[in-house]
């Protein structure tokens, strides 16, 4: 679950075709028109990816997508997305795994479930976004120091250790691991929190905190036949 370097992000799923395209692009660099291939070849697909996603609980309805765009129409964040939620659905179903996992869209999803309740085909788009986030994190496909996966990672670490979240400690760890300058930019917020008695770094922890790790490990290790 190590975040990849920028270089490895670029090479994820690279094909011979990509490399030849890269050569072409270099040759064209002398031209003022920067070009990049947008056509998709069958070799760009990871055949079976869409089916795999659709087999996850909550994601089954994706096969019924009619590409109407309701999800993008209601999504409060679609205005910033490189691929609209509708396009993510189409790319996922068509097995373009790398395109999907590299998309900003999955990280911009704030899990507000608007798309899920509006979808005329009752596709649970938010749950699919969760699934795609999980796949991107486990494949290590996200920009270095990108805060969202780091937040998710720090969150899980803290829960495993203490059973609860101490929000401020989490936020501070997040800033330290991503962009500590941004933390300084938020000085006013910190001041407000102190002023209103909400600035507490005292770690919250449950009595049986060891239990959490035991439970989570039991998820990873299904009981198999005795060795």
């Amino acid at each position, binding site marked *: 679950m190590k975040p990849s370097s920028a270089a490895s992000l670029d090479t994820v799923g690279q094909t011979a075709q990509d490399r030849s395209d890269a050569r072409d692009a270099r040759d064209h660099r002398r031209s003022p028109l920067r070009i990049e291939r947008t056509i998709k070849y069958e070799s760009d697909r990871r055949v079976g990816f869409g089916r795999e996603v659709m087999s996850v609980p909550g994601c089954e309805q994706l096969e019924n997508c*009619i590409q109407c765009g309701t999800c993008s*129409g209601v999504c409060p964040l*679609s205005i910033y997305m490189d691929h609209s939620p509708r396009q993510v659905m189409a790319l996922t179903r068509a097995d373009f795994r790398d395109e999907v996992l590299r998309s900003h869209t999955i990280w911009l999803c704030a899990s507000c479930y608007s798309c899920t*309740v509006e979808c005329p085909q009752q596709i649970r788009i938010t749950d699919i976004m969760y699934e795609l986030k999980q796949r991107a994190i486990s494949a290590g496909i996200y920009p270095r120091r990108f*805060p969202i996966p780091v937040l998710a990672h720090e969150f899980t670490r803290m829960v495993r250790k203490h059973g609860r979240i101490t929000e401020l400690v989490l936020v501070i760890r997040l800033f330290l691991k991503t962009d500590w300058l941004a933390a300084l930019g938020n000085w006013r917020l910190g001041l407000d929190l102190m002023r209103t008695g909400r600035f507490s770094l005292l770690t919250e922890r449950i009595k049986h905190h060891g239990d959490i790790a035991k439970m989570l490990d039991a998820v990873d290790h299904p009981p198999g036949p005795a060795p």
Partner: protein
Amino acid sequence: MKLSYFPGCSLKGLGRAYEESLLPVMRHLGVELVELDDWNCCGATAYMAVDEAKACVLAARNLALAEQSGRGQLMAPCAACYLVLNKTKHYFHDYPAMKATIDRALAAVGLSYAGDTAVRHPLDILLNDIGIEAIRQKVTQPLKGLKVATYYGCQIVRPYATFDDQYNPTSMDRLLEALGATIVRYPLKTKCCGGSLTGTVPAAGIRMVYILHNEARKRGADCIATVCPLCQFNLDAYHAQVRSEYGEVVVPTVYFSQLMGLAFGLPEKQLGLQRAAVPFRWRPAPPPHAHLTLGRNPVPAPTLPMVQLNPEIRIGFYVCHCGHNIASMVDCPEVAGYVGRLPGVVLSRDYKYMCSDPGQELIQKDIAEFQLNRVVVASCSPLLHEHTFRAAVAAGGLNPYLFHMVNIREHDSWVHTDRQEATAKAKALARAAIRRATLARALPERQVPINPAVLVVGGGIAGIHAALTLAQAGKHVWLVEREPSIGGHMARFDKTFPTLDCAACILTPKMSAVGSHPNITLWSYSDVVQVDGFVGNFTVKVRRRPRYVNEDLCTGCQECIGNCIYKEAKFPDEFNEGLGKRKPIHIPFPQATPQVVLIDPQVCLNFKRGVLTDRCKKTCVEACGDRKAIDFTQKEEVKEIQVGTIIVATGFKPFDVRRVPQYGYGTYPNVYTALEVERLVNASGPTAGEVILRDGRRPSAIAIIHCVGSRDKKTNRWCSRVCCMYSMKLAHLLKEHSGAELYNFYIDIRAPGKGYEEFYDKLNEEGVHFIRGRVGEVTDWAMIPEEEGKLVIRVEDTLAGVVRRIPVDMVVLATGLEPHADAQDVRRLFNMSCGTEGFFLERHPKLAPVNTFTDGVFIAGCCQGPRDIPDTVAQAGAAAAEALALIDRGFIMQEPNTAYILDDCSGCKSCIPLCPYTAIAFDEATGKAVINEALCKGCGTCVGSCPSGSIGQHLFEDDEVFSEIAGLLAAYL
């Protein structure tokens, strides 16, 4: 009241003001909250993004602890906790694999979860357990004059339907209103607050916080009330960032519980109000004056009859491949080989299409060549081809009732996935049929004469066309219409697509032809209430509602209307969808047929709530003068008629657009339904064809939203077929009448008809915009100055690949077509079937599209499914032709499946009242029951109910049925 309480990390951290205010408020209301011992993180949003199973396991530990505590209810005030706990419960019940994972993880720490804990939100408890009244009683400092924007955020209403409406939740509104506060209309009440994006992608997150503040400020809210710690944090703590980027737009954000505490008079310090970065100050009004608003007999089991095999039985058996329909799942040659070895079978074949001409000829040839005296065909449903094969057998010289059919398609190959098992089932079904066929008797056919009169139900274009066709062929037609005039929906349309003929110009000549045709008796304002009998001889009862005007005497001069005591028309006019006004005495529209006025007793001054009072001056009666057509004493009448065939053409109901609240119908006056717009652009409509909006403005931009109530699993799944075309027609007309910019928002353009695609082309040339994307919502909050005062459409332009906001003045909802609300009652009345969507079911979707499963009852038009006018007229013609074909033959052949009395009838008479056709009488001379064969419909009710088993039924003899069962089970006996 005692509940478990799950605070969650936020209520102990940044959202502590929520807990600080909620606990005393709940205590004040007598709710005892016991904090769940050793609770842990719920597994919220951030964890879900890493590992859904683990997130659910974390939540499940809390659910298990709650269950262990013995209190079945767990209150979770944080929206994220509330959702995750609920989601886990759903997953636990819906996905066995998830349940197994949860069970395993909990077992690792000695816990278990049975799946029972109810996860409750405080709002749910306050409204549904404590109740608004009890809360109102506790108010000592009413929040008079406080304007609140209620903000629910996302996760307490989505994605699961919980205690409140998903699109327009109102629980907090009602609660705060009870505290005396004023609720401002806030269309963003369920929008996203930005979640964790305020910290991770500030450009996106802060903008969302800004939108929420800005809109609340514009609507004059003193504060935003929230139910979620993250919402409150985002809206409150980021005020500085919002201010520096967007200016002074920030409104204080409080928890609803803090407002409750204030209204209850609890000390401010106890309510955590000091924790808000943007301070909220509320000076209550001086305390108000001292008023608080405040066994049958056992039947011996039948012994299975010993089948005495008649050596002369010679059965021919045929198994049909039906192309791949049967052969792909059933090994047909194997079935044929197996049946060929059964006793009595002299010939067994498999064949590609038994229903084809060569297939039928094969049967005829074999009967002669092999002297067959029984024929069994294993193929599709008898509904489709029993008739075909009986005819073939008869043509071969055999009595048609010596034929028996087995369904191995619908009952076997289509519904199974294992070829071996499906083949075994086909063999068992065939074996049963062979046993039964062995005992089949030759039966005579019965001839029954047909009454040539026809009943047509529904006076829309389908009923009108069918009635005229039949009348012109010389048949007498009773046309029964529910509304005061015939014409149906078509009479309300302005133009028809794609030719743009004026709907009234082409329809009204047909309407008046109906009104004056000597062969048509038109009964409008009437309903069919009872139908008895069978094909050829139906007895129908029709209720004629009083219109308080004698139809025979009224000349349609309408002088009564002009002289009504009401000088102004002031009641909503049904024909114009309520956009126009009418008087109590009125005629639905100028060309109404019959040309007879009617009185609405709900509003007429001579009645009070429908009851005659005789208090009016009756100026209408004076105006009518000697014609004496007005009759206030008219009563409802039930008339009985005899007909031989029935055509049901009851049409459709437009989808109720209020079921899609996100499109704002009823909230925003300038949102219209398509049918309203038909009247709005019509020259004889309420505005004489001018496009003047409900607020008096003229639109400069108009949006037409397609597929409202169509292609949507939450409402109606089907495509309504006509909306694309009528939307384009309305776009053309609206552009022509108003000069506005027209935008069509569609999922797919469906224009499959003669001249339809060309019409689409024409609209593109006219500059009408077509945007492919299903609209997310219609709203009135503005992002930029040009949007102020407009309705804003938010949609993804899926072809351009961008999300757009488009301000318009008028929105037209292209409503889909659905069955009438009483379609099920009508279905029962005529003994028809309905498909899953509720439209009447045709006998065969391809080959018998106007027949129903009841002989002599036909359907036409939109009652069978959405269709346009050309298709409706074609179908009405087809239904009329089917009726004519029956009538002109003069008689029908009835299946000889009648019941008959055996000698051992004891004369107990118990069968007589049971017969739905009154076909059984008691013969005093013999002391036995007798069945009138002409009346018996072969329903079998008497056969099954006879206590001494002394009623038999042709075609369904006991030995036939039991031998069939024995054949089916032979492998197990």
